[in-house]
Structure formats: structure tokens, C-alpha cells
């Protein structure tokens, strides 16, 4: 008996009992949908993280203070911080490897005001290397430089939005005076540069949510000042708890990271009982992120596997009910010359069809769910062909595995007893 006949037979059987077929498939549908949703969503998140990290520079290294005792409560002392001097020495040690350091210190949110004109700001102290590490595009003037750092001058680099709002145009803002209100304080800055504000969908959305969907113009943009100035104005200790090292393109960043760790430990932190400097390359971070995602995917797969197992048992149950109901039919088929093998094949095909249809519905729901979730996160949806292929394969395997026992039971029925069955 050929396969096509068996398939059409199975589909007619399912159509005759739509509700039952759907309920039978439910476990498979849920299991497959869960896997596909998580894989799709996971890919979106993972892809975005990787993209962002790579944009930030896969070759970069994070230097950060790390507590030796692993006691989170211990506060960082001024003497523990990474100083400008340490960074300079490091640069001299590895002149071919290190291109620049990027450091930033958040000052807080503020507002530039002049009469009725205003612009919301997010104030940060930065150094010269920050521009490199963060792909900042300058529209006019210059970025914060080492001279500004040394002089602790009150100069600012503002976004084109702020320039428009306060001075009417980018060009007009250069050399202009900006009065910034931050908490209780009022500071005056001279604008030395304007950068292009890049709308980042994630931050824009988060901001919009936090500000209760306020006007687009009210979304704060970054306003950069020398990090030394920010220390002076906010009264922070002079030093960094975290610095990004921009490595030259050809450098093995993982290797440089371990060398830097050693260097800081040897030169500055050997006698510090509380803190040391930990260096981690972006590649390592991306790798860690990816491994976290894989672990999560694995956990979800286990749950989905259990759901599929339950679904498979459901299919087996309904197949047993079905062959009991169709005992006379089986007897008749045998009287007409069906071999045991063809009866077995008929019911395995039926079970596989149930699982495949369930799997297909699950894939569709999973892609829909994953896309919805990705959209909510503002990311592109990334369903993978391989996950769909695996889902289809698993559905078929479940169909064969859980259909075999009932099908074999049908195949082994005694024809006379089957024909006499009431």
C-alpha cells in the first residue's frame, strides 16, 4: 500500500475528528512552539548583543577594579582607584598594542537653559579615547582632548539636537556659552564641539517609557566634559573604577588582557589587600554572553523535551483508542489481504501525520511568538532554519516512536477476532 494513500487516509481520518486531533496535538504544539519561540527570541537578543559589542569594538578590553575578598559590601577607597598615571605607564609598557584608553564618569542628568530655550542633558565626564571607543561622529568643532583634561577646563561637546535647541544651528553653537542646571548647581560651559546624535532605538524606547512618552525633543542627549572637570565639579575622587582599553587592530586582545592584569597587579596592586585590577577582553565577554544564552536555550530545550514527551504519550494514547475503535476495519482490511506490515505502516503514518501537523502549527506559533517578543524588545526577529528543521525532525521522530506500539498492536490483531469485535 503506497505512502500517498496512507497519508490521504490519515488526513481524512483526522478531518473526521478535528477537535480530538487538535487536543491530541496540543502537547506537541506547545512543546515545539516553546522551542521555536525561545530560539527565535534568543537569537534576536544574542545577535543584538553581539552586534552592539562588535560595534563597540571586539578588540577592546575592559579594565575594572575587582574585590579580592569577593565581599560586595566593601567600599572603594580613593587609593584603590585606577589613576591617569597608571594608564600612562601601561601605555608606555605596551605602545604597539594599546591605541588609547576610553574612560567615562557619569555626572547625572541636567538641563541647559537660556530664557525659554532648554535642552535636557545627560552629563558625562570623558577622556579623548572615549570618542574612538564609542564611534562618535563629530559635526563641528573638536572632541574633548588631553589639554582640556589637564586644565580641567569647563568645555562641553553637545549633540546637534542641543545645538539646534539652544543656538539655532550647529555652526552658531561653537564657542557659545551654555548654562547648565544640575541639581542645586549652575555651571557655565563653552561649547567646543557638536556630535551627531544617533538615535538608538533601545535607549529611546526606554527613555520614552521612563518619561511617560514625553516629546521627542525632551529625550536627554549626552553632553560631554573632560573627566577631570567632572571630578572637580562633582567632588568625586580622582581616578577610575573602570576603563576601556582600545587595542590596535592586529592585537590578540585576550592575550593583552591577561598581560594587563599581570601588569597592574605587579606594579600597583600587589600590596592592596582589598582590590586588584581585572582585565577582560570584549571577545571574552561576548563569549560569556553567548555561553549564557546557550545554557538558557538548553534549559528551555529540556522543558520543551518534557512537553514533547507528554505530547508523544498523548498521541500514543489516542492511537490506542483509535485502533480499538477501528478494530473491525482492521479485521476487514486483513480479510481483503492487508499484510501485518501494511497495517503497521498505515497507523505509523497516521501518528506521524498527527505529529507533523502539530509540529507545523507549533513552528508557526513559535515564529509568531518569537517575532512578537523580538518586536517588543525592538529587535529584528531571527528565526533559524535549523531550528525549524530540528522541530520537524523531532515531530516525525515522536510520531514514529509513539506510533509504533499502537500500530504494532493493530498489525498483530487476529483477523477473526477483529472482525467479530462489537
Amino acid at each position: 500500500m503506497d505512502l500517498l494513500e496512507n497519508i490521504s487516509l490519515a488526513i481524512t481520518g483526522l478531518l473526521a475528528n478535528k477537535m480530538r486531533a487538535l487536543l491530541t496535538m496540543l502537547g506537541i504544539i506547545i512543546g515545539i512552539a516553546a522551542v521555536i519561540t525561545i530560539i527565535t527570541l534568543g537569537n534576536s537578543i544574542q545577535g543584538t548583543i553581539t552586534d552592539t559589542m562588535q560595534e563597540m569594538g571586539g578588540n577592546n578590553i575592559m579594565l575594572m577594579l575587582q574585590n579580592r575578598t569577593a565581599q560586595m559590601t566593601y567600599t572603594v577607597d580613593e587609593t584603590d582607584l585606577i589613576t591617569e598615571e597608571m594608564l600612562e605607564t601601561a601605555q608606555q609598557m605596551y605602545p604597539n598594542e594599546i591605541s588609547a584608553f576610553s574612560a567615562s564618569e557619569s555626572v547625572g542628568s541636567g538641563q541647559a537653559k537660556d530664557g525659554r530655550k532648554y535642552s535636557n542633558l545627560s552629563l558625562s565626564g570623558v577622556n579623548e579615547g572615549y570618542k574612538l571607543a564609542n564611534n562618535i561622529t563629530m559635526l563641528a568643532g573638536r572632541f574633548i582632548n588631553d589639554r582640556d583634561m589637564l586644565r580641567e577646563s569647563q568645555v562641553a561637546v553637545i549633540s546637534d539636537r542641543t545645538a539646534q535647541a539652544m543656538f539655532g544651528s550647529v555652526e552658531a553653537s561653537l564657542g557659545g556659552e551654555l548654562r547648565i542646571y544640575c541639581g542645586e548647581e549652575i555651571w557655565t560651559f563653552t561649547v567646543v564641539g557638536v556630535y551627531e546624535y544617533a538615535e538608538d532605538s533601545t535607549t529611546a524606547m526606554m527613555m520614552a517609557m521612563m518619561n511617560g512618552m514625553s516629546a521627542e525633543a525632551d529625550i536627554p542627549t549626552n553632553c560631554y566634559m573632560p573627566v577631570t572637570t567632572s571630578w572637580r565639579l562633582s567632588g568625586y575622587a580622582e581616578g577610575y573604577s573602570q576603563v576601556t582599553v582600545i587595542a590596535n587592530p592586529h592585537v590578540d586582545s585576550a592575550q593583552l588582557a591577561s598581560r594587563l592584569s599581570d601588569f597592574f597587579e605587579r606594579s600597583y596592586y600587589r600590596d592592596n589587600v582589598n582590590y586588584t585590577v581585572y582585565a577582560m577582553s570584549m571577545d571574552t565577554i561576548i563569549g560569556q554572553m553567548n555561553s549564557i544564552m546557550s545554557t538558557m536555550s538548553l534549559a528551555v530545550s529540556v522543558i520543551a523535551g518534557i512537553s514533547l514527551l507528554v505530547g508523544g504519550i498523548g498521541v500514543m494514547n489516542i492511537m490506542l483508542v483509535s485502533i480499538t475503535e477501528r478494530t473491525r476495519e482492521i479485521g476487514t482490511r486483513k480479510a481483503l489481504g492487508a499484510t501485518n506490515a501494511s497495517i503497521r505502516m498505515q497507523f505509523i503514518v497516521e501518528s506521524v501525520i498527527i505529529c507533523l501537523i502539530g509540529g507545523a502549527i507549533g513552528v508557526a506559533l513559535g515564529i509568531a511568538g518569537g517575532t512578537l517578543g523580538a518586536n517588543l524588545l525592538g529587535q529584528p526577529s531571527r528565526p533559524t532554519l535549523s531550528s525549524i528543521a530540528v522541530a520537524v525532525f523531532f515531530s516525525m521522530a515522536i510520531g514514529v516512536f509513539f506510533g509504533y506500539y499502537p500500530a504494532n498492536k493493530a498489525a498483530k490483531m487476529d483477523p477473526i477476532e477483529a472482525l467479530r469485535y462489537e
Partner: protein
Amino acid sequence: MTQQNNLNPESSLPAEQSPKDLIIQMNRIVKTFNIGQPNELEILHGIDLTVHRGEFLAIVGQSGAGKSTLMNIIGVLDRPTSGEYFLDGVDVANAKDQQLSSIRNAKIGFVFQTFNLIPRTTALKNVELPMLYAGVSKSERTRRAKELLELVGMGERMGHDPNELSGGQKQRVAIARAMANDPAIILADEPTGALDSVTGRMVMDLFHQLHREKGKTIVLITHSKELAAETQRIVTISDGNIVSEQRGMA
């Protein structure tokens, strides 16, 4: 069909046991149910039966006499507990399950009292089924199934499902299905038992037609003395023994 010859190892049999026109040859057939259990029961006590090719035979007897049991053995749905059975020259008492399947498929056409059409499957597909198991091509299946349905007067109802057919119509489809692989024998166990006398008459006429025009061997179990009398030979069974054989009127 040509398959008949493939399953016919005549050379292995003594010449006198296998005259060309003997299609059923049963010697001392015994059937015992529930062997080795306290309710062990011998139903057939050594049946000897021969049927000639092209014969129309009726088996009669009281309820519980063992007619259906014998019929199942003739149709190789069941095996005798002991005895010899040659069907169209083949020793089926010792055949394997798979061989029995193909013997049923190629040589036997069953007609049941309760029709036993496959539900949710059109009359056409029902008639195609034995050919499907025989591996006949799709176009040939459909052609022959249509031809057979025309023959039994069901040409107009080919696309109908069994639940859209009357009892008489169902039985005619079942007869067309029994004819699908052009079997050597048609076995009908009370084919008119579930029908009124008029439709029963139509079904009986159909058997006569198949016997006369197609030369089919037909074994008919019936409770009706009138219908049995229309056949060529009437075999009466009582308590698992053949008690008499009479010539019929045909």
C-alpha cells in the same frame, strides 16, 4: 488473474490429489477453540469437503453448527487445528501469515453479513482497496473499480461514503470489492441476512450473474432454504459435522 499460477506448486502434489477442477480440497478438518484451557471446545469434528471450480455451493445448518468457523478456514482467515487443506492446489494449512495475506488478497473475495465497508471511504476507494494491497497501479485500480461498480449497478453512487448508502447498496459495493482482484472463490457468510427480501433477492441475482457470466466459484452460507435451493449443491452442517449433501436446482 495471473497471480493464481504463481501460487500453484502443482508439481509438489500427487496427481490424483490435484485435479485441475478441484478448487477446495479439505480432508478431516478439525477446529478446536481454547486449546489447553478448561473451556476447550471442538467445533469442527473432521470435515471432508471438495468444491469444483465454477461451482455454486450453499452451506446450511442451525445457528452454532460451525458454518462461520468453516468459512473462516476456507477463506484462510483461520487455520484448522488439524487436517489437510488445499486451496487451488496450494497447501495452506502450513503456509506462513504473510502468504495467507496474499492468498486472501488474490484468491478470496469475502462478502459479510454486515457489509464491513471501510467508513469515511468512498464506494470507489472501498472497491480499490484489495487492488491497493495487490500493488495495482492507480489508473488500473480506478478503471477496474469503476467497471465493477457498473457491473453491480452502483455506477451512479461511486463517490458516496458508506453512511450515505442503503443496506442493499452497501452489499453491492461489498460484492464489487470482493471481485476486485478477480478471485478464484467468493465466500459469502449470510450476505442477505441483514437485508429485506426484495434487496436480498437483488443480491442473490447478482451472485447468480457472477456465477453464470464470470464463472466464479461461490460458497454461500445462508439460513434461507429457498436461497440455498437455488444453488447447485447444498451442504448441511450439524454440530460440526457434514450431515448431508443434496443437489440444488441450479
